[in-house]
């Protein structure tokens, strides 16, 4: 009985595809694990950004009755940016 070359080719392709799938699965799991590990840091940064934004808004409100705080706000770029709810240099991360 002679072996069919088509069967051998299909078996080879299937083996290659299976190995590639397993490799991609491993890399994906590794990247997902790293993302989970930095999630607390990202959440802390986002919380901090939100708190600083609230502080900046309160300081802007405060500056309406106490102009002596304006140099501080202007040096931080809070007042120069907008006149309303200005936000200091904060970038919210995706997660």
């Amino acid at each position, binding site marked *: *009985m002679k072996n*069919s070359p*088509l*069967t051998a080719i*299909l*078996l080879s*392709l*299937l083996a290659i*595809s*299976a190995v*590639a*799938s397993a490799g*991609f*699965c491993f*890399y*994906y799991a590794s*990247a*997902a694990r*790293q*993302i989970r590990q*930095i999630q*607390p*840091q*990202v959440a*802390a*940064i986002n*919380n*901090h*950004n*939100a*708190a*600083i*934004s*609230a*502080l900046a808004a*309160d*300081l802007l409100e*405060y500056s309406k009755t*106490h102009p*002596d*705080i304006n140099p*501080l706000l202007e*040096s*931080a770029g*809070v007042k120069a940016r907008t006149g309303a709810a200005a936000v*200091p*240099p*904060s*970038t919210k*991360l*995706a*997660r």
Partner: protein
Amino acid sequence: MDNLENPTPGQPNQDPTPTPAQPMADESNDLHAQLEALRGVVNLALVLMLIVSGTLTTYMMRQWRSAKTELEQLSAGITAYQKSTGPAMDEFVRRTVEYSRTHPDFAPLAAKYHFNEAGATPASQGRPAVPPASSKK
């Protein structure tokens, strides 16, 4: 005189009984056909498995690329925050704390943001120097 036991080669054999080789040949042909059919089924199954495996491979590759891109963006954001944004915010908070010490009118805001308690925690280390926005107001 003719030998009835051993006919001469020129005479046709009158005995109709088949030789044992003929059914074996039929059986061999039948097995060969079955083998070819089985081979076709195996090839079809292999093609189907290849399609499924290829689809899974493509899906896993896209998932991996997506996760890798997200991880790179988050890492870049964290690095940028720790290098520039975080220290700038720390400086802003530090100067606000200093301002609050010399201006008694600022006491309500200083109490609201717990300046006396959190001033030592640098934001660039990934921990907030002021309470989260959700805990205020």
